[in-house]
């Protein structure tokens, strides 16, 4: 083992460049920093102040107490409620948008999901819907996606949640459509103009940091309850990823290609239509895909303002503590996510030139392409064995397949059993696998399991809360507010320099202004602890996944499922296992944030250049040395990104954590949404969470930029 390199003679300094060689560009020399000692110093001062002035100036506010600022927000709300309908903006503009979307949505619903009065069933029954969607999936994404689509749709029916499932699909499609219409031009503009990017990016940051609960009430105030509010909520949440990814996609069109195109004399719009968009197409589809996933994860929250979809049965099941029923609905959301994800991915892969060769061939098994008429096929180029279908040929074949689809649609309008998905009393064979049975299986199992372990888990919760959560929270929440603010600013400065310090100062001022300082600090404590936990899990799993393909294959589906399953669904088992409290909220946050962080870490580890790994191995590194000295340090940017994302995800769970005893800001947001006199306070809490998110995000980013250097 070549571990004694330290004793080796240092290599001679590189020979000085000869005068007449190329000049080296001027570079700033790195400065030595003392981050560690400085942080330690801050901690010591902080502890001293804490010991002396504990519980002074903590700015705590009682549960039902409000400040003038909250009351002021209340009065605005009152005004909108009383006079809004006659106002040109609230009643006119927002009202018009609201009505339009509600009407479009109701029209679609009557077409495929709810009874089109006076018909007792929708215009097109389940058989027709399945056939149409299967055909679309086949036309754009291929056979495999078609099978997935058919199975998923059948399960909607088998589990007895046909209408809610289709409603959710409609909301998602409409919302993503709106996102696309807004997001694509926005992303393009941002990619082409740096100023635009500089203006919009912070807004996207805020939209992504703001907890959906915080804008639930104001949006409902503006658009009324129902589909429009659900769509607006979903758009706010699902737009940022699409915009960012579109911008990224257009920006990452290779410089050479752009240059080559410019040298051919393309105009700006030719460049966009013929070079940038086609080449960024795949990336944009990834953006649409991400947008869809985000939209689905809003389903349960939108259901709180009567948003149609699978969120409704989830929420209803939660009210009655029915883990099974919540899981069944949650499972369908996951399935829908998988279906949309795989289909859009497959569609984007097929849109690439080469892959399109194989698609139709699968379905043409037995048909020899050469036998088709001339216009339907063309030579696929040298080195590619089969001829390829021309567009005309593809569409002819697709057109033929439309005939059975139309027959199915026709039948679904004529026959009750093809219109309304038959339950177990019609199709007896469904009995062991339908929604009721699966609900029961899950309930039986979870009751049994919880019964076995809950004494242990409850004790665990109590111990961890006493030893870890309480002391840390006390330190943050019981320090005087000014001391706490100074500590945060000092840390921001040491980690990231003066820029994040200024941003933090603004954010802290906003938090102070909301009148919820103490609650914010409690939330901050929980957020930091949860993020720490998330990173521990993410690094352990991520390193394993990054180093071994097999581990990755095993773990990844679970991560995918946890990412899409609505958080509400695992609140029930979390409650049953850990009871009410902050620990439970942290666990829920962990379940929500760990998947994304883990994936980022895994990708980072895998992204370490194989040559570097090889070089390290050739010096005789052990596995442990490889991980700690090569792979983790080199994946450091991914680690920082994972921490940042983990932090934001944790923060977005703070509100939901409020539902299981997380208390503080989350609870206030929810109570503001449901109690008339606390509206303003809830809104203020939403603002505080957003400010905190922006602050933490900025500190992390600037710190990362330093580390990355």
């Amino acid at each position: 083992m070549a571990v004694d390199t330290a004793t080796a003679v240092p290599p001679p300094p590189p020979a000085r460049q000869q005068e007449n060689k190329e000049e080296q560009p001027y570079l700033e020399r790195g400065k030595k920093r003392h981050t560690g000692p400085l942080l330690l110093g801050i901690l010591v001062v902080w502890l001293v102040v804490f010991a002396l002035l504990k519980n002074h100036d903590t700015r705590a506010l009682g549960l039902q107490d409000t400040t003038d600022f909250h009351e002021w927000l209340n009065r605005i709300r009152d005004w909108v409620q009383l006079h809004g309908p006659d106002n040109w903006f609230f009643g006119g503009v927002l009202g018009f948008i609201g009505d339009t979307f509600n009407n479009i949505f109701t029209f679609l619903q009557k077409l495929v999901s709810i009874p089109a009065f006076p018909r007792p069933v929708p215009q097109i029954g389940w058989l027709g819907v399945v056939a149409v969607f299967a055909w679309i999936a086949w036309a754009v994404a291929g056979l495999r996606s078609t099978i997935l689509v058919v199975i998923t749709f059948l399960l909607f029916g088998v589990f007895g949640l046909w209408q809610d499932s289709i409603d959710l699909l409609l909301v998602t499609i409409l919302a993503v459509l709106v996102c696309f219409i807004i997001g694509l031009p926005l992303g393009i503009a941002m990619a082409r103009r740096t100023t635009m990017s500089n203006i919009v990016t912070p807004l996207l940051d805020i939209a992504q940091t703001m907890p959906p609960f915080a804008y639930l009430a104001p949006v409902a105030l503006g658009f009324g309850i129902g589909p429009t509010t659900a769509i607006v909520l979903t758009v706010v949440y699902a737009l940022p990823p699409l915009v960012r990814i579109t911008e990224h996609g257009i920006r990452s069109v290779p410089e050479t290609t752009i240059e080559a195109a410019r040298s051919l004399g393309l105009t700006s719009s030719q460049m966009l239509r013929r070079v940038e968009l086609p080449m960024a197409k795949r990336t944009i589809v990834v953006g649409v895909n991400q947008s869809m996933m985000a939209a689905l994860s809003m389903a349960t929250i939108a259901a709180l303002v009567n948003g149609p979809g699978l969120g409704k049965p989830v929420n209803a099941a939660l009210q009655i503590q029915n883990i099974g029923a919540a899981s069944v609905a949650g499972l369908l959301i996951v399935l829908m996510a998988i279906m949309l994800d795989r289909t859009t991915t497959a569609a984007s892969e097929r849109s690439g030139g080469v892959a399109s060769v194989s698609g139709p061939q699968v379905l043409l098994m037995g048909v020899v392409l050469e036998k088709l008429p001339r216009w339907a096929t063309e030579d696929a180029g040298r080195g590619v064995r089969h001829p390829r279908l021309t567009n005309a040929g593809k569409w002819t074949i697709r057109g033929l397949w439309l005939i059975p689809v139309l027959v199915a649609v026709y039948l679904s309008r004529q026959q009750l059993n093809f219109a309304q998905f038959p339950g177990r009393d019609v199709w007896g064979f469904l009995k062991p696998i339908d929604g009721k049975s699966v609900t029961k299986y899950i309930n039986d199992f979870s009751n049994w399991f919880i019964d076995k372990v809950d004494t242990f888990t409850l004790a665990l919760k109590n111990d961890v809360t006493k030893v870890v959560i309480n002391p840390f929270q006390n330190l943050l929440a019981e320090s005087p507010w000014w001391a706490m603010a100074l500590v945060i600013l000092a840390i921001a400065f040491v980690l990231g320099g003066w820029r994040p310090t200024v941003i933090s100062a603004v954010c802290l001022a906003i938090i102070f202004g909301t009148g919820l300082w103490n609650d914010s600090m409690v939330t901050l404590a929980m957020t930091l602890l949860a993020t720490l936990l998330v990173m521990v899990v993410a690094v352990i799993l991520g390193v394993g996944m990054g180093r071994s393909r097999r581990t990755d294959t095993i773990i990844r589906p679970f991560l995918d499922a946890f990412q899409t399953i609505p958080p509400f669904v695992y609140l029930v088992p979390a409650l049953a296992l850990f009871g009410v409290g902050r620990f439970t909220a942290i666990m829920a946050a962990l379940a929500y944030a760990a998947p994304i962080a883990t994936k980022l870490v895994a990708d980072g580890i895998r992204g370490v250049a194989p040559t570097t790994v090889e070089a390290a191995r050739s010096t005789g590194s052990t596995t442990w040395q490889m991980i700690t000295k090569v792979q983790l340090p080199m994946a450091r940017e991914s680690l920082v990104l994972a921490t940042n994302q983990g932090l934001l995800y944790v923060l977005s769970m703070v509100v939901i954590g409020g539902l299981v005893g997380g208390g503080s800001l989350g609870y206030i947001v929810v109570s503001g949404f449901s109690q008339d006199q606390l509206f303003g306070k809830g809104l203020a809490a939403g603002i505080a969470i957003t400010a905190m998110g922006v602050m933490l995000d900025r500190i992390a980013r600037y710190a990362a930029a330093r580390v990355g250097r």
Partner: protein
Amino acid sequence: MTTTAITPEGGQASPASMENPALHVDGLWKIFGPRADKIIGTEQANLSRKELQEKTGHVVGIRDVSFDVAPGEVFVVMGLSGSGKSTLVRLLTRLIEPTAGTVELYGEKITGMDDSALLETRRRKVSMVFQHFGLLPHRKVVDNVGFGLEVRGEGKSQRRNRAQEMVDLVGLSGYENNFPDQLSGGMQQRVGLARALAADPEILMFDEPFSALDPLIRRDMQNEVIRLHEEVGKTMVFITHDLAEALKLGDRILIMRDGEIVQIGTPDEVVGAPADEYVRDFTSEVPKSHVLTLKWVMRPDTGEVPADAPALPHDQIVRDAARIVLDHDGPCRVVDGDKVVGVVDDEDILRVVVAEEAH
């Protein structure tokens, strides 16, 4: 090295300006930075690259470059990475905007053109070939080749025919329906070449087109360029960092360092009379016998050589003359037309060849 002692008769052989050049470049500058135009003409412009960057944060890309390219000539710009050669070729069609100076293409001023005229120039008069090809992966070979024609609005059948011609010309027949990622690097660059030729431009510009290719493929492609040059006879500006490539292709070579011209000359001038240590360093590894002509190795005619000794043209490459000189006992005559301009003997030849082997 004794070759330094030989002074070429041409000296600085670059004509300061020629009659009706294909490309005329005069006083071209590029400084990167927000206040670039404020620097030219001040004292700061005379600072070295490094000093300027330290003081103002601006980087000099190209410093006061002037040259002419004759119609039909292959003009090679050579330099190490960072020397500014890629910036230079981009300034010529304003893919990068010059800070100062003029570029004229067949008398037409490119600097100062409005946007539409510039587009028109790029569409019809200048074509470029890039190091990393810059092909569109979502289009078939034939559609990539015809892309420039499509952009300028030519009809489908017309551009298809033209594109197919070009595909055949660069030797890709049969691959027209493939997608770029189904082709090897060399084949992809042939597509790039075909695309550039399809527009039937007045001048072709190559930005290190073969640097990303394997040596053998590179040699093939260089020969391909020589063949195409013979067939279509276009003016070419060729950027490379490979001296061997420059010597092989170039009628004349411009050597750059730190954004400035170090030397302009024919291959044998560059090798035979390097302008400074920098160029000498460069050319020291070149097999001189392959580049130098007899006029670089001959001695003055003192009249002792018999008139029946073999007469060799003064611009014959040393390597090609070596056999005759070595076979003949005694010196040979070097002639320019009918005039005897000097003599060479075995020793003159061997000095060049042996010097190489000493390396």
